[in-house]
């Protein structure tokens, strides 16, 4: 009798398990990604916000070319072939044929991808006659900060499937910039349809691309929903559905991962990683990432215009303590402006070491024996390159007090913060940079060049003609050895002048449920879920 009951129980339980498995299957093979913020736009051209690019760039769109994260070589995407002329001033792309654009509730394409789409997409950046150039205040932050909008002279349609970019001068980082997440291809036919209906403003809000997923809906503060693109040209897409659950609170993202409400969580904080690592049903992915967290001085404002003061401050900081308390051992101590994984990396021997006595004597030399008051602006959000700027600022505050410098920590809401840094209202700031391409120029031109100073993107407010000349020389040649040499000079110039002090390079983390596989997390650029699937 007992045996009978047991068997009965076992059968019922098995039945339960069976139905549970079916439930998972019938949730139609979807994946939920807990994202940290609302997307600000659905067009990667008009924003550099990392959280937005992670959601849209690789899911909805394709680029002409991409960069292999391992070999760092260019790979064909929408362009099957590309040729750079001998003088480097023109680049011809041969385009892939029969690539369909998304069919959505608001647009049905009548033709496949061709040269018109490429011309429309990239002329929007610089051509005032492009009907969309001024939509959204003509702001294309990435392309403007690296000067691509000033570089392209014109784009020539050679044939239906061939376009030629003519440049004002040869720049070796042009192809790398064309391979960033921002250089996606949009549909010209869709743009013209919106224009005909006088709905240009909706073009960047309702996307049409060629990527693995198709836009379905976006509900602010709630979710973004994509469906599988059944006609994706590259490969079959396994996931029927991709949903972004917008969860700004970091702890809530982790909790949802634990309750299986999301399969993937963006940017888990270092403090929570140890708890997650204990769970078998959760995978933590760790990826080296091209980024740098730094402390920049406003070099136009006394006493920071004196190099001895900048050096004194740099020598006063105990970086070891910061690595422990802020990065929890999940970062690499900076040895140069470039991270060690970059091909142009050159370890700097003149990196300032922790030496309060030297700091004091340098201050005395500069005539500031009694110290002074200054402020450190700490960014209010957590980023790969600096998980907790506030804490870092507090540690530095106590270090600097020992050499007689009184620090006041300043914080603002993120967007206001960026804007006021652009106006150079700070004494010094803790900020960082995550690369979009493996090209080393990406670390220098957008951050420290004179043109970056004028466009408000240079947090050190530093303009050095020698530095700009070196950068231009490095971009003028395609000889990799020569470029390496120039970038070595660039790196040592930064250490000599110290407009900013590189502190650390962070690791990028992604926490996911153990039954998810195929997530591509590269050393640069945004996450791609094209190959994601559930086991």
């Amino acid at each position: 009798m007992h045996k009978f009951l047991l068997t009965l129980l076992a059968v019922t339980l098995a039945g339960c398990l069976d139905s549970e498995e079916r439930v998972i299957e019938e949730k139609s093979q979807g994946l939920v990604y807990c994202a940290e913020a609302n997307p600000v736009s659905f067009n990667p051209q008009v924003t550099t916000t990392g959280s937005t690019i992670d959601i849209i760039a690789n899911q909805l769109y394709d680029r002409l070319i991409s960069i292999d994260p391992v070999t760092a070589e260019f790979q064909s995407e929408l362009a099957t072939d590309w040729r750079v002329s001998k003088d480097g001033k023109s680049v011809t792309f041969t385009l892939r044929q029969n690539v369909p654009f998304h069919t959505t509730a608001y647009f049905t394409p009548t033709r496949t991808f061709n040269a018109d789409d490429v011309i429309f997409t990239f002329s929007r950046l610089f051509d005032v006659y492009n009907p969309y150039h001024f939509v959204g205040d003509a702001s294309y932050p990435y392309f403007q900060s690296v000067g691509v909008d000033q570089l392209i002279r014109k784009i020539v349609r050679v044939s239906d499937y061939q376009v030629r970019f003519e440049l004002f001068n040869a720049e070796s980082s042009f192809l790398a910039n064309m391979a960033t997440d921002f250089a996606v291809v949009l549909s010209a036919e869709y743009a013209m349809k919106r224009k005909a209906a006088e709905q240009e403003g909706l073009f960047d809000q309702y996307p049409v691309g060629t990527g693995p997923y198709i836009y379905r809906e976006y509900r602010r503060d709630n979710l973004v929903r994509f469906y599988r693109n059944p006609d994706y040209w590259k490969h079959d897409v396994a996931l029927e559905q991709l949903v972004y659950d917008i969860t700004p609170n970091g702890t809530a993202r982790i909790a949802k991962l634990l309750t299986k409400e999301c399969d993937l969580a963006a940017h888990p904080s270092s403090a929570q990683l140890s708890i997650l690592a204990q769970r078998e049903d959760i995978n933590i992915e760790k990826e080296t990432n091209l980024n740098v967290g730094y402390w920049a001085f406003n070099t136009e404002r006394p006493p920071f215009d004196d190099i001895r003061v900048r050096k004194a401050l740099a020598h006063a900081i105990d970086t070891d303590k910061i690595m422990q308390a802020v990065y929890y051992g999940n970062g690499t101590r900076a040895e140069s402006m470039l991270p060690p994984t970059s091909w142009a990396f050159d370890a700097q021997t003149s990196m300032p070491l922790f030496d309060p006595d030297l700091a004091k004597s340098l201050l005395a030399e500069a005539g500031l024996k009694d110290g002074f008051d200054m402020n450190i602006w700490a960014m209010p959000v957590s980023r790969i390159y600096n998980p907790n700027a506030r804490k870092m600022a507090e540690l530095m505050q106590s270090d600097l007090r020992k050499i007689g410098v009184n620090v006041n920590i300043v914080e603002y809401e993120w967007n206001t913060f960026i804007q006021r840094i652009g106006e150079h209202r700070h004494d010094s700031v803790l900020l960082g940079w995550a690369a979009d391409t493996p090209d080393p120029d990406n670390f220098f031109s957008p951050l420290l060049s004179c043109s970056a100073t004028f466009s408000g993107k240079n947090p050190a407010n530093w303009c050095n003609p020698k530095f700009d000349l070196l950068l231009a020389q490095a971009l003028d040649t395609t000889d990799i050895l020569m470029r390496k040499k120039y970038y070595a000079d660039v790196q040592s110039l930064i250490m000599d002048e110290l407009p900013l002090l590189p502190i650390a390079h962070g690791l990028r983390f992604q926490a996911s449920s153990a039954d998810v596989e195929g997530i591509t997390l590269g050393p640069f650029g945004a996450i791609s879920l094209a190959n994601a699937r559930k086991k």
Partner: protein
Amino acid sequence: MILDYILRRLGLLLFMLLMLSIFTFSLAYLFPGDPLSNLSGVPSNNFSQNTQLEDKYLYNSNYFTQYIAFLGRVFQGDWGLSFASGDNVFSHILDLLPATLELSVYALIVSIFIGVPAGILGSAYYNRWPDKLINSTTIVGYSMPVFWLALLLIMIFSLKLGWFPMSGRMGLLYEIPPSTGFMLIDIALAGFPYKGMAFTDALHHLTLPTIVLAMYPTTVLVRFTRESMLKIMDQNFIKTARAKGLNRRQLILHHALRNALLPVIKKIGLQFSTLITLAMITEVIFSWPGIGRWLIDSIYQRDFPAIQGGLMAVSLFVILATIVTELLYSLFDPLSRNQAHGKV
């Protein structure tokens, strides 16, 4: 007679609405920043846009004209644009209010179905162990802060046991077209898609927030029903009935209950304002996409047009709910209409 009463109530309603609208309108001036952009939700930066707005909002005429224009826009559904999203505040409210209503109504239903019987039970076993048990449970439930209860339940039932989800109205992978905004009704209208699993999933998501939100009104109803029952049971007509030989069951069900529940109905109506306040806290904790969470987010983001519109919508709703329950009450209890002139 009853018409007279209803008219008086409606007069009161109109007066309250007038005060509410004046208060909401003046908020645009009381909030920091430019009143014009607080009203319209358009951050004024260029001149031509500014003059256009000034014309539309009659900004250069006196306050009274501006207020009349404001009322006109309120009735047209033009409540200004939200700073944060750039969309019409009114459409946000239409989207979000059903979610809050759904949660509150279910919580209220749960509290009526548990609170009233528990109160009757308590009075029937006055001062014996069922009464004492109910009483002490009520005191614990009554004194527990709602956010603490919510976190406790999440800790136990979501994170430890994994029985219930901790956020949202339903699994995000189920796509249900929003037609009424009430999730369960929408699923039913869509014909129970995903083989009915969307429906059970929605119920799953409802469980914890409903329990949390129902806690306070349930305890209030228990105490109130119990007291009201005890008072009635002490009255002469009950004593007479008992003397005639009716048993306790007959006494309670046929004589006492009807009379005891009348004041309870009034009490339920009064619970609505508390319920909405508690719903806001519950929504924030359970990431419930309702008006409360939105309003609190708007306060964080200093989204003045949204705060203004949200406050107006919520207070409007509470006022209407209170008046409706009072009218219902007077329909059931003719005596109350006579006392409308005032009583001590």
